[in-house]
Structures are given as C-alpha cells and as structure tokens.
C-alpha cells in the first residue's frame, strides 16, 4: 500500500520538478538574452496555454466529459481582467497586486459562467455538454463583439451595440479591449502554472477526485454507492472554468489590445489537441504538449508557406507514435525496469 502512495507522490513530484526546472532554465536564458524576440514573446502565451490544457484535462480526462468551449471561459477571464486592471489602475498602483486581483476576479467571473453553463447541461448524458459548450464559446464571442464598457470618474458604464458611452472606452465592441497595461510577466505565468498544478493534482488525489474518476469509469456503479453525478461533474467543470479564466487574464495582460476573435472555436480545439496529444488524464503530458505545440509554429517559421503543413505532419506523427503498441510496450518495460531498480534500492536501504 505504501507503494501506491509513494508512486503517486513521485509522479507528482516529477511533474512539479519538470515545471520548475524548465522555468529556471528558460528564465536564465531569457535574462542572458539567449532567446529570440519571437520566442520571448511566446513565453506568456505558453504559460496560459499550459494552464488551459491542465484545466481542460480535469474536465476531459478526470471527469470524462467533452468540453469544446474552453476558450469561451478564457475570454470571459480575459475581458474581465482587462476591465479590472484598467479600472483599478489608480486604486492599486502595484502591478503585481493588480494582476492578482484581476486573476481572482477574472477567475470568479469565468467560474460563474461555468456554473451557468454546467448546471443545466451536466444533468444530461452523452455528447450534450460538447454541443452546449461549443455553442457557449461562440455565443460569448459574439456577445463580447458588441459589448462596450467605459469608465468615467471611477464609474463603469456597460452597453450593448451602443458605443456612445461617457468617458474612456475600455472595451470597444469588435475592436476588443484597448489600451491594456501589459503587466503579465513570465514569473506570474510560472506561478499560475504551479497554482493550477496544486489545485488539479490535489483535487485528483482527494476524495472528490476519486468520485469524479468513479463516475467516469462507471456511472451506474458510482450511483449505486451513493455518488451523485451532477455535483462532481460540476465541481470539475467549474474548477476548470475558474482556471481557464485566470489563464485568460494572464494571456490578455500580455498584449496591448485583445479582441474576442482570439478566443474562437479554433482555440478551444487547439487546447483539446494539447490534452489529447499529451494523453487524456495525463497532466504532465498536457504540459509538455502545450509547451511544444505552442512553440512549434514559431520554430517552423523557416518553412514559410509550408509551416502549417509541417505542423500537421508533426501532429499526425506524434499521434501515430503514442498509439504504437511496440513503443508502448517498450515504454512500459523501461518504466518497470526503472521502478524495480528503485524498489531494489529502497529494499537495500531498509536492510
């Protein structure tokens, strides 16, 4: 029994160490000026996409529901964050504190949206959630496209389809959020990833996470031992929405303007691709997939016109490789060997 606990502990520790090591290396390289400008510009989006992938994995991998509108929650967070940082610029001059405030409020706003979408839909079975979340993502994009928010003398004005608001426009309809103070930093992105990891990994390995996985594995059996579907599916869905909202704030505060078009259906699918390629239910895989697949198009710039073609080919190759029985066997044999050596070492130490 000890074995399982320690295995889980090692697994999580490896994930944390991987993230910390990657951060330290990349940060040192950045400070030393070894990264190209385009790559430096990609660092914060990578962090945001990693958080998106981890949180979507909570819904798809752990609770077993397909969500196709994850970018919708990201955009709710992004635009809420843009309004919060702009309206609090005078009240909270310190950008770090303002950023944390924006993330909290953006997370809550996305979480509320998660409840609104999740409560009616998670009662249904099958692919309904996928369809409704897909619709939600599109609806939210269109709503933000005709949303106008302005601030005048410390008061916020909100209207739809009517740009004639008093004061300075913060969100200007189809032009999106304007004049955002670029206060996202790579360190904050790293902190958000660690926060997300703590929330998701600890939730997974707790009583509630077990209930989610039980419902995923066998709903009828889970109900027979008194585990309610809606509560735990909603718990996973709303937690993921909150985290996506926070990722949205991080993402938006990296640009001076942000439009709703950034959070289209493509973005939701992209995040789903990270989750599927990294392995459904595999958090570490999501992190690696999100990081590599976000950098890849940048690295492929030298291919010019063939960039997306190469990108697609790489996706297909990875998909083939991860589904290859021989490779899988080789991998598990390698793991077993590593594990038995670890056990032997432990046994030796005990003696």
């Amino acid at each position, binding site marked *: 029994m000890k074995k399982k606990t320690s295995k889980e502990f090692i697994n999580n520790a490896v994930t944390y160490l991987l993230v910390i090591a990657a951060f330290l290396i990349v940060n040192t390289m950045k400070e030393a000026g070894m990264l190209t400008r385009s790559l430096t510009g990609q660092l914060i989006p990578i962090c945001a996409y990693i958080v998106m992938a981890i949180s979507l994995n909570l819904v798809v991998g752990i609770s077993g529901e397909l969500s196709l509108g994850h970018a919708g929650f990201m955009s709710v967070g992004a635009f809420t964050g843009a309004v919060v940082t702009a309206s609090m610029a005078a009240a909270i001059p310190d950008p770090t504190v303002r950023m944390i405030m924006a993330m909290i409020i953006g997370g809550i706003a996305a979480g509320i949206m998660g409840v609104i979408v999740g409560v009616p839909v998670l009662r249904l079975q099958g692919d309904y959630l996928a369809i409704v979340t897909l619709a939600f993502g599109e609806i939210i994009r269109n709503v933000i496209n005709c949303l106008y928010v302005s601030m005048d003398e410390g008061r916020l004005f909100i209207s739809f389809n009517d740009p004639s608001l008093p004061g300075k426009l913060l969100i200007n309809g189809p032009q999106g959020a304007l004049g955002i103070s670029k206060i996202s930093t790579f360190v904050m992105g790293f902190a958000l990833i660690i926060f997300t990891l703590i929330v998701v990994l600890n939730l997974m390995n707790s*009583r509630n996470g077990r209930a989610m996985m039980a419902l995923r594995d066998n709903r009828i*059996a889970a109900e027979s031992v008194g585990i309610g579907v809606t509560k735990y599916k909603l718990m996973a869905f709303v937690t993921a929405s909150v985290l996506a909202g926070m990722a949205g704030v991080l993402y938006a505060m990296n640009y001076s303007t942000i439009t709703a078009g950034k959070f289209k259906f493509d973005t939701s699918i992209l995040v789903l691709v990270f989750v599927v390629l990294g392995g459904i239910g595999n958090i570490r895989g999501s992190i690696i997939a999100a990081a590599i697949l976000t950098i890849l198009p940048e690295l492929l710039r030298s291919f010019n016109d063939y960039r997306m073609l190469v990108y697609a080919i790489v996706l297909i190759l990875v998909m083939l490789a991860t589904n290859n029985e021989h490779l899988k066997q080789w991998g598990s044999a390698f793991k077993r060997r590593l594990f038995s050596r670890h056990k032997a070492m432990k046994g030796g130490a005990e003696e």
Partner: protein
Amino acid sequence: MSERKQRTPMVPFPSDAIIPERDLGTRPVLDARHLGVEFGGLKAVDDFNLIIGRTEIAGLIGPNGAGKTTIFNLITKVYSPTTGTILIDGKDTANMNTIQVNKAGIARTFQNIRLFGKMSVEDNVKIGLHNKMKYSMATGILRLPAYWKTEKLMHEKALELLSIFDMQDMAGAIAGSLPYGAQRRLEIVRALATGPKLLLLDEPAAGMNPAETSELMENILKIRDTFQIAVMLIEHDMHLVMGICEGIAVLNYGSIIAKGTPEQIQSNPAVIEAYLGKRKEGDA
C-alpha cells in the same frame, strides 16, 4: 418506537412472508408491496411482495429472464416501479433516487461486474466509503490536517474491509486486472463499505469454482454475523442458495410462484416444474 410500530406493521405482510424467528418483532429492513413495472406494455414484474428481516439471508431464484435483476433495479431505483411501494427500514422510497436509496441503507453488486476498472483496489473501496468519511473540497486541495487524518482512517478502514476476503495484499493492484473471482469479491467489499443495512448480491458465485463458492458461502455468513445486516441474493448455484438462504422466493415471468424455506422450495411442485422442468419418471 411505539409510533413507528403503528406505521410499519410488525406482523409480516403479506401473511405468507417468511422471516427468521430472531427477526420477528423488529422492523423489516425491506418491505416491498404489490411491486410492478411495465416496459412499453410488457409487465416485467407483477404484484411482487417481499419482506426481509433485519439479519435474514434471503434468496431470489428463478429461470433466466424471470425478472430477478429487474427486482434489484426496482429496489435500488434504477427503474421506478409503475405500481406498489418499497419501504427501506420503514422509509418510503417513492421519491428517492439511486443515490438516496444507497444512503438509506441498500448496497448492491452487479451481475456483469461494474468496478472502477482503471482505479486501484483500495480506491474502489474508498469510493464506497465516500459518504461515510468526508472532508471538503478546499480541505482536499489545501491538504489541511483533516485531509491526512480522514485519508489515513479511510486507508485503514479499506484494508480492514478487504481483509474479510483476504484481499488486503491486492490493495495496490488495478481493479480491472484482478482475476474474475477477486473482482466479484471486490464488488461486495465496495458495497459493504457504504455501510448498508441490506446487501443485494446479483449472482455472486457466477464464474466461481466449487471451492471458491464454498468460501463465498462462509464469507456471506461471516458478513451477516459481523455487520448484523440482511443479505438478499440472486443465484443460480442451488448448492449456495439452499446452503445459506433462510427464506427463498421463486420468480417466474415476473411473478412470485413460491416462497418458503429451502426445504419447502425444494419439494414445491410448481417450482420444480417452472425452474427445473417437469420431473420425469426415473429421475432421482
């Protein structure tokens, strides 16, 4: 107590109910009356009456397709009965769902095993303990002291329950990788973990060899004696049914055709005809 007596009669109903003597005068753990269900005009179960005593081991037998598993599904509210009432320990289940029925004290196993296949044996049992040992979501995420304390208790309780079937050594294994017999036993442990008053076993000996079946019989008796609960089982293995059941109900085409002790059932001509086929000259 006297008030309760009035609401749930101590006199077994219907009068042909068979309850062990030690359970007479206590409230029955299950009291199903005139239970019936129709699927698109087809009567799968019709006028089913059954009372089970608090520590009784009851058997439900009948030919394939007689409606035995449907009865389990009705009791656990997987299906809602079209007619009739079910009282669990005196409480009417008319407005309950499967989850509430489990909380009211009924746990079950399935004919086609339904484990959480990708999770460990211990986690399967811990899911059974889910509603017994609680801590909040925040406690779990922040890993507060209550988390460690409850998880430790859960771990100990899970191993204790697994030890009923000598399965504590398998705790770390993946449930789906266990041999068939062990999966069946794990399902019983998981059901027991929810702390039921009545345990419903759907063909617990299916796929077991005679030695495993004998062991299972001992274990069912042990469970009843240790936890002081009632057990109701569907089973085709007559050795098991006749060996441990105190009361048996025979179902055919959705209706009870006989009720009685194992001896009475074995010599009931209606049962022999429906269940075993007509006795021919020369058969022992």
